């Protein structure tokens, strides 16, 4: 039945495709993929793709490597991509030696068994502010050290507030803020812009109001929680905030503010450098809580962590690299480049000395709260998602704030059981 010719053809085809494979592997460089090599290559992954090889950040990494007697291979990934990359690499035992990740991800990675504890690696975390370190502490163990922190506050456009005869210093609670927005609206300008997008970014922006009402993440549909959502909802309905907030990232909401028509923008420490470029006078006030006083805002910023390696002999060098990155001098440089506030009191003071404008932010960071703290840990993502679904539903008009949060609570409770 068979013909040899056909078989030969098939065999030839097989060889061709094998060649294709072999041809491709010719291009590979040995040791390109991190672990295994006993040599001097140490890999570092960070979420700062905006920095290229000529940047201060990469120079710092290289110098830390040279000081530790090794070569550093650094790759910058997009933040959202980095978590998946880290999990995938860990699954294949190909983790980098040093991993710098967004703080709410630390508990997830720690729970997955991907990270070593600071005890194992003998990293000193004593000087770090406890409220900042909290995001890296799970079940009494610490899984990394913050490289710096940022948080949210309200930027305002001085000219618009002057035009509306609003004194920013008098804004101490929600009522006075809404009253200010009303006055701004009367002058034909726009009120406030923020980001209520259906992602973690939206939850990050909602939390100051949510916590500022006295609500807690374990009970989303409490009266206080509903009040917070009603505040946002009222702003949208009364034209104090634009409808586009539903789709705004923090960058887009910043661009709206930078266009010069908005009185307020809820935004982060990292916009400081851009604020100078807007061409109008601006100021910063802390986000007020409902009853008055500063509301706790969530902390942002990344942690330096050390993923588990099969070859534990690599840890001493990793420890040196981390110590180098978090040393006072280097932290100062890094936090200045990133527009962050340092994680230790000593460096914070140095920052304020160098730039007095940062004082507001240092205060805000001190009052800030980790999203995964309160021992929420890996429960936080399962609460955050229903929460952003809720404010999206309410603001888009498909449910009332109370209904939306009730649904959110049911979902969150089921997911965190």
């Amino acid at each position: 039945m068979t013909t040899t010719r056909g078989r030969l053809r098939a065999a030839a085809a097989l060889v061709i495709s094998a060649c294709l494979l072999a041809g491709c592997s010719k291009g590979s460089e040995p040791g390109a993929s991190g672990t295994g090599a006993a040599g001097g290559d140490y890999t570092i992954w960070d979420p700062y793709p905006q920095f290229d090889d000529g940047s201060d950040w990469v120079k710092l990494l290289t110098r830390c490597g040279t000081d530790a007697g090794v070569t550093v291979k650094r790759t910058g990934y997009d933040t959202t991509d980095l978590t998946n990359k880290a999990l995938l690499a860990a699954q294949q035992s190909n983790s980098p030696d040093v991993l710098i990740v967004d703080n709410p991800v630390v508990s997830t990675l720690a729970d997955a068994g991907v990270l070593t504890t600071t005890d194992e690696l003998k990293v000193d975390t004593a000087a770090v502010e406890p409220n900042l370190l909290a995001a890296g502490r799970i079940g009494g163990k610490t899984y990394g050290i913050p490289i710096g922190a940022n948080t949210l506050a309200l930027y305002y456009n001085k000219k618009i507030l002057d035009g509306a005869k609003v004194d920013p210093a008098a804004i101490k609670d929600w009522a006075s803020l809404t009253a200010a927005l009303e006055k701004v609206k009367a002058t034909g300008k726009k009120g406030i812009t923020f980001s209520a997008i259906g992602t973690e970014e939206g939850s990050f922006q909602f939390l100051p109001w949510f916590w500022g009402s006295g609500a807690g993440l374990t009970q989303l549909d409490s009266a206080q929680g509903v009040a917070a959502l009603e505040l946002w909802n009222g702003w949208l309905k009364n034209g104090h905030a634009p409808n586009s907030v539903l789709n705004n990232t923090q960058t887009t909401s910043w661009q709206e503010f930078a266009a010069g028509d908005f009185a307020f923008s809820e935004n982060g420490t990292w916009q400081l450098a851009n604020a100078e470029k807007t061409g109008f006078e601006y100021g910063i006030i802390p986000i007020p809580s409902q009853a008055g006083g500063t509301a706790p805002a969530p902390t942002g910023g990344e942690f330096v962590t050390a993923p588990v390696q099969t070859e534990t002999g690599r840890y001493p060098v990793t420890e040196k690299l981390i110590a180098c990155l978090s040393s006072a001098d280097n932290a100062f440089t890094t936090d200045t480049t990133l527009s962050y506030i340092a994680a230790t009191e000593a460096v914070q003071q140095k920052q304020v000395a160098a730039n007095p404008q940062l004082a507001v932010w240092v205060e805000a960071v001190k009052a800030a709260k980790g999203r995964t703290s309160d021992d929420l840990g890996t429960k936080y993502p399962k609460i955050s998602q229903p929460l952003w679904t809720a404010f999206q539903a309410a603001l888009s008009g498909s449910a009332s704030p109370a209904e939306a949060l009730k649904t959110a609570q049911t979902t969150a409770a089921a997911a965190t059981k």
Partner: protein
Amino acid sequence: MRRAKTVLGLIFTAIMLFPVYWMINVSFTRDTDMRADPPHLFPLDGTLEGYRAVLDQQLPYLGTSLIVGLGTVALTLALSAPAGFALAKLRPKGGGVLSFVLLIAQMIPGIIMAMGFYAIYLRLGVLNTVGGLILADSTIAVPFGVLIFTAFMSGIPDELIHAAMIDGATTWRTFVSVILPVSRNAIVTVSLFAFLWAWSDFVFATTLDGGGDAQPITLGIYHYIGNNNQQWNAIMATAVIASIPATLLLILAQRYVAAGVTAGAVKD
């Protein structure tokens, strides 16, 4: 009459390319004007900041993208043209099943493919190589190529093949010297899309080539997407600059889509 058609054609193209114009507009816009209300229709007091950043940093990425794109085209054609011919004209038993599998293969989400590849590549040591990326990118185009070749080649008159066979040509010779020349349209079509997919792929690039020295342009864009900040004018400028060489290539390729190729061959 013909001039009227050209004018109509220009109007259609203008409508179609309006979003592209908008992108170009944004690429010249200063950060502070990006959300101006009403929007600026022309970048009157524009900035070249975006382009300055791009020209400094992005050119090597373009080269890699070009190599990856062309490599993907070559690999895709080599694999899919013979397969399309076999399915369309030799019609073996089980060919239908194969076509069906090809259809299903395209439904696997790209990210799942990428995760699978990551494990395989790590073991083969082809992670972060251009060759590895070409191979991965070809998986988007190969099933498409086979199905398109099958559809086009089934339109080639059987007499053409009979004639060649009677002349004593082997099946392979018939394929190379009779079928391929009349399949020019299909070849151009498949090449175009293989190139375009490879050019715009992001998922494979970031998963399999994220740490490489030679990265494609889609990863280059990520220079302007920081964890808290996006430089939109630079992102758009990258896209504009990246599309120029590729557009030229497309215009060139489109000239090779010929009218009535099969007809000409029958006459000979």
